[in-house]
């Protein structure tokens, strides 16, 4: 199961003066679900476009199933299902026409599966794509991305701009795809709840750099949130061991900390503080803490709230 489906090494990409990707390494192994998170403009879509061969690597390498997607687009793309951020499917076709058109490109196209999904989403195959609502459009785009039963499914913001019902349908179809043995899914999202539910592994991109790349389990277990009460008012953010983000004022402070808890607890005791509440950090808290690290080389950054 350790077979690598995606291998991105040292990939950099600039648009003018903007560094969209800066020495990015990313790997995906077979059968797992990868959540790609980051603020708008962080570089998620640029990374995805490189994986699809839509952009050529200027420096660094991209290998999908061991092949270069720019050199061998047919060989790579037939194994990939892709849902773009803008769901760019031709407006002038009917749903049925789009299915036949997309199906013609894929020898593994499963019309039965496509029909089943159309029925699940209660979509009328005779409808013109231009007449569809945003949610229906996303559903159609998803069906055309997964009906050839790809080994690798790449979804760029699959649920952005969708209402709760359609989102649930879409995620359900994704879960179904995942549960088919051996399929790999990479999806970008800024809905962290969704990422936490669906992924085995989370990669955070911030300003073109990978700031966190770890299994969800490890993230859950290595980041903690503690709320602390000090005996005396702290005029500046207290210096606590392994703290990533410190916020609060007066005697009450909230801290996101990383790693083992003993040194952290000792540092609180030294400042005559007491832990009021402690728990694992949520993905959202981890995300905020990684995104606000102004410089990756500083092990401890303090960010004072308000």
């Amino acid at each position, binding site marked *: 199961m350790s077979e690598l489906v995606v291998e991105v090494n040292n990939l950099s990409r600039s648009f003018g003066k903007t560094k969209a990707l800066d020495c990015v390494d990313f790997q995906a192994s077979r059968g797992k*679900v990868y959540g790609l998170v980051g603020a708008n403009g962080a570089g998620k879509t640029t990374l995805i476009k490189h994986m699809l061969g839509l952009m050529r690597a200027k420096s660094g390498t991209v290998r999908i199933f061991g092949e270069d997607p720019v050199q061998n687009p047919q060989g790579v793309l037939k194994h990939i299902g892709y849902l773009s951020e803008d769901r760019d499917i031709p407006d002038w076709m009917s749903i049925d026409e789009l299915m036949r058109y997309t199906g013609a490109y894929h020898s593994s196209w499963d019309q039965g599966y496509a029909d089943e999904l159309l029925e699940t989403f209660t979509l009328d195959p005779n409808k013109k794509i231009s007449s569809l609502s945003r949610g229906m459009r996303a559903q159609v785009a998803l069906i055309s991305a997964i009906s050839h039963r790809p080994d690798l499914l790449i979804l760029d913001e699959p649920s952005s701009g969708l209402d709760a019902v359609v989102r649930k349908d879409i995620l359900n179809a994704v879960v179904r795809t995942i549960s088919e043995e051996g399929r790999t899914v990479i999806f970008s999202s800024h809905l*962290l*709840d969704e990422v936490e539910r669906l992924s085995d592994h989370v990669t955070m991109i911030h300003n073109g750099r990978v700031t966190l790349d770890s299994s969800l389990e490890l993230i859950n277990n290595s980041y903690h949130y503690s709320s602390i009460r000090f005996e005396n008012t702290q005029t500046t953010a207290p210096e606590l061991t392994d703290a990533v983000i410190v916020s609060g004022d007066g005697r009450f402070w909230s801290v996101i900390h990383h790693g083992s808890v003993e040194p952290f607890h000792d540092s609180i005791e030294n400042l005559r503080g007491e832990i009021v509440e402690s728990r*694992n950090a949520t993905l959202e808290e981890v995300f905020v803490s990684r995104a606000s690290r102004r410089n990756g080389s500083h092990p401890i950054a303090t960010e004072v709230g308000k």
Partner: protein
Amino acid sequence: MNITINTKDGVPIYRQIANQIRYMVASKLLKPGEEISPVRTLALALNVTPNTVVKAYDELAAAGVIFKRRGAGTYISDEQSPLADRERQRIIEARIDTLLAEAHQLDFNAEDLLDLVRERQLQLDAKKQTEKTAAENLDE
């Protein structure tokens, strides 16, 4: 199975699933020998990756709470009693820890707490009794 996932308190999802199944077993909502939802069904119902459900089931199987019949589903283990007792203990201890921590914040000590628990039980019993009498009067 009625499982709810909360992504707001930092508890890993597989652990939430495992804990809720343990709870359902300890509280007899799930009975020995009963079949539980297949991985895929539960994954779809909760909209989580099947790998997460697999992880939860593996943990429960290792603890002897459930067992898998090859190709024939997953069931609640028959011999629950010693384990269910330990589980009940664990669940109530977790609640007590929370209560103690909160009591400490509000400046109650363990003795105060015990008194309050007894007093509260008496009040609840009295309330139940009044309701029962009221219902009986209504019946007549």
